[in-house]
C-alpha cells in the first residue's frame, strides 16, 4: 500500500517545502548543516542504520505503540475514537522516536556531545535519555518559566546526567530556549550535535525529524487496516512546532478519504491575541532558521506565544505544515486552554489515561467533532504524550478543585500550599 504521490513529498534539495523552510542561519552554522545533511542522506539509505534504529524502537522504546479503541469515550461522543498511544513510549511521549534517530546519527558522525532545546521538557528528557544510553554528554536549554511549569522533567533530565541550562532571555519559554540553543551551538558546532525536537529549525531538521516521527503514521496505517479493515476517516494531532502531527499525518497526505486535522493552541482565545496558533492566526515569516507561519507584529518582530501547554507555547510552526495548510492537505484549527483542560479531565475520567496538555488539544477537537460524524465514523487521535508532567499546572489552574471533585486529599494539600 502506498499513499498518493500527487503532493510533494519532502523538501527540494535546498530544503524548501514550496515557499517555506530553507536554511536561514548565520554562516558559522552553514557548514555544520551541510555536513549534517550529507550524513543524514547516507544513513537514510543505510540498511545497517535503519535496522539498528528499528531494533531500538522495538526493544528500548517499546514500539509499536498500541492503537487503542477508547470505548467509553467513543460511547459518550458517538464515533469510534481510537488513541495512538505514544504516551506509552519509553519516556512518555513521541519525542524519543526522533532523539534515538538523531543520537544514532550523531554517533555515526563522531560527535561526543548532544544538545537540545525543550519546552515541556519531553524532548529534553528524550535527548538526555539517549545521551545516557549512548554515553554522550548532554546539555538541554530550557526557559526558566518552563522549568517551573515542568519541574518533574527538569529533575528527570538531571538524574539522567544532563545539564539543564536555564534560559532567562525574552519570555523564558521555548522560543528563547531555541534561540539560546542556536547561540550555544554556534560556539560548539564542531564537536556538538544539536538535536532539534520539532519539525522546525533549518534544513535538514524539518525533513529529518518528520521522517523519524513518521513511524507513528506508518504504524497507525497498518494497525487501522488490521483492527478495522480500513483507514480512519479522520486523524487529529496537536501542533506546536508540529512533530507528532507531521509524523502521524505524513503517510496519509494526499489520501482524500482520510481527513487530517492539526490542532493548534488557541490559549485564551484567538481574539485575545494570547495564543500559539501560528497557522490559524499568523503570517509568513522567518525565525530559527526557517520560513513558515509565524506570530509577529506588523514590523516583523516575533510575538510571544501563550498556551497552557509548554510544548505548544511556540510562535512558529514547521515549514511542511505551512505547505500542507496552503495545499489544503491538512486542516488546521485551534482550541483554547479551557477546552484542552476539559478534554484532559474527560479522558482521565473516562479512560483512566492522563494525557499531556499538548495531546489534550487534539482530544478536545476530536470530541468536539465526533458527535457530528456518526457511529460509523472512525477517528484516530494521536495521544502524543502522557500528562504526569502537567499535574502541577492542572491542579494550580483548577485551584485544586479537579472537575468531579473526587480529590479531597489533593485539595487539602493545595490548600496548605496556599
Amino acid at each position: 500500500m502506498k499513499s498518493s504521490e500527487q503532493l510533494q513529498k519532502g523538501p527540494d534539495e535546498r530544503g524548501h517545502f514550496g515557499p517555506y523552510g530553507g536554511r536561514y542561519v548565520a554562516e558559522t552554522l552553514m557548514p555544520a548543516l551541510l555536513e549534517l545533511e550529507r550524513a543524514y542522506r547516507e544513513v537514510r539509505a543505510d540498511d545497517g542504520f535503519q535496522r539498528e534504529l528499528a531494533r531500538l524502537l522495538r526493544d528500548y522504546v517499546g514500539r509499536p505503540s498500541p492503537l487503542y479503541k477508547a470505548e467509553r469515550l467513543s460511547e459518550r461522543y458517538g464515533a469510534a475514537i481510537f488513541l495512538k498511544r505514544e504516551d506509552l513510549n519509553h519516556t512518555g511521549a513521541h519525542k524519543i522516536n526522533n532523539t534515538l534517530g538523531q543520537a544514532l546519527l550523531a554517533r555515526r558522525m563522531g560527535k561526543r556531545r548532544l544538545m537540545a532545546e525543550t519546552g515541556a521538557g519531553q524532548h529534553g528528557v528524550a535527548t538526555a535519555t539517549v545521551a545516557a544510553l549512548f554515553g554522550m554528554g548532554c546539555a538541554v536549554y530550557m526557559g526558566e518559566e518552563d522549568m517551573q511549569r515542568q519541574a518533574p522533567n527538569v529533575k528527570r533530565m538531571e538524574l539522567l546526567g544532563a545539564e539543564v541550562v536555564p534560559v532567562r532571555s525574552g519570555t523564558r519559554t521555548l522560543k528563547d530556549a531555541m534561540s539560546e540553543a542556536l547561540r550555544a551551538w554556534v560556539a560548539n558546532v564542531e564537536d556538538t550535535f544539536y538535536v532539534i525536537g520539532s519539525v522546525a529549525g533549518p534544513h535538514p531538521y524539518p525533513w529529518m525529524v518528520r521522517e523519524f516521527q513518521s513511524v507513528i503514521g506508518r504504524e497507525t496505517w497498518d494497525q487501522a487496516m488490521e483492527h478495522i479493515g480500513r483507514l480512519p476517516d479522520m486523524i487529529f494531532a496537536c501542533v506546536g512546532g508540529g512533530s507528532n502531527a507531521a509524523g502521524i499525518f505524513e503517510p496519509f497526505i494526499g489520501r482524500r478519504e482520510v481527513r487530517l486535522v492539526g490542532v493548534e493552541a488557541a490559549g485564551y482565545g484567538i481574539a485575545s491575541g494570547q495564543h500559539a496558533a501560528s497557522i490559524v492566526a499568523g503570517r509568513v515569516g522567518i525565525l530559527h532558521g526557517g520560513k513558515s507561519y509565524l506570530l509577529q507584529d506588523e514590523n516583523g518582530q516575533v510575538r510571544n506565544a501563550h498556551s497552557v501547554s509548554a510544548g505548544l507555547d511556540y510562535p512558529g510552526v514547521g515549514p511542511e505544515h505551512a505547505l500542507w495548510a496552503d495545499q489544503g492537505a491538512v486542516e488546521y484549527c485551534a482550541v483554547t486552554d479551557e477546552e484542552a483542560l476539559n478534554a484532559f479531565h474527560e479522558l482521565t475520567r473516562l479512560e483512566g489515561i492522563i494525557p499531556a496538555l499538548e495531546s489534550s488539544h487534539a482530544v478536545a477537537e476530536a470530541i468536539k467533532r465526533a458527535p457530528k460524524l456518526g457511529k460509523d465514523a472512525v477517528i484516530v487521535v494521536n495521544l502524543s504524550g502522557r500528562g504526569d508532567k502537567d499535574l502541577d499546572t492542572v491542579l494550580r489552574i483548577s485551584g485544586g478543585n479537579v472537575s468531579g471533585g473526587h480529590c479531597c486529599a489533593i485539595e487539602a494539600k493545595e490548600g496548605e500550599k496556599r
Partner: protein
Amino acid sequence: MSRLTEAFERLRAEGRKALVGYLTAGDPNLVVSEQAIRTALEKGLDVLEIGVPFSDPTADGPTIQAAAQRALAAGTTLKDVLDMANRLRRDYPQPIVLFGYANPFFCRGIEQVCADAAQAGVDGLLIVDVPLEESHDWRPHLRAHGLDFIPLIAPTTSVERARLILKEATGFVYYIMVRGVTGIRTELPPDVAEHLRQLRTCTSLPLVAGFGVSRAEQARVVARDADGVVVGSALVEAAREGRVEALLRELRAGLKQVEGR
C-alpha cells in the same frame, strides 16, 4: 562605483585601515542612539553598521541582545532606522550598512526594503541569517537598487565554500573571527591570521574582521592581515557609558601601528 568600494579604495591609497563600528539603532531610544552614532561618525568611524533591532537575535551575545531589547521597548521600527540613516546621510560621507536579521526586512518586503534603503542613502545590507543558499531572493533586488550585499565568512567556512560565497559578494567581506556569537573576548583565536591570508587568495574585495574586538592591541593584531576591524559589542557598551570617542581613539591607536606598511 559604490560608496563602500570608494571608501576602501581611498583608505588603501592612504595606507590606512578601516575602523568599522556597529551600533543598534534605537538603543535606548532613537534620539540618544542617533547622538551616539553621530559622535562615532565624527570621531573616526570609517564605516557605520547600523543595527536594525530584532526580537530574536540568534547570532548575538548578551550585549547586543540587550541593546535590541531596549530599542524594541522604545518602539524602534525599520522605518525609524531608515529615517535615521537618511538624516545621517545628509550630514556624513561615510558608507552606511544596514545590519540585521531577515524577518523585519522580509516582513516589509525585500524589494521595498531595498528601494527604501537606497532612497535613504544606505550603501549595503548585511543580513546575518541569510547565507549564500537563501540569498537568491535578495541579491537581485539589492543589485537593482545599487546596494552591496555584504557576506559573512566564518572560521568554519571552508576555502571552497568561501570562493562560492565571494563570487556573489560586493562591497567588502566580513570575517567572523570566533566560533560563537557577538560579544567582547579577552582573547582572540590563534587562527585568525591564517584564515585571513587564505581569504586573500579568494577575493580582491576588502577584508574586515569582527566579533570580539574591544582593545587597541586586538585591533592591531587583527589589522595586520585585514583591511579593517569591526567593533560591535564594545561600542554598544561604550555608547551606554558615554565613552564612544575614547574607545574609537584607543582602537585607532591600535590600527595606526600597522598602517602605512
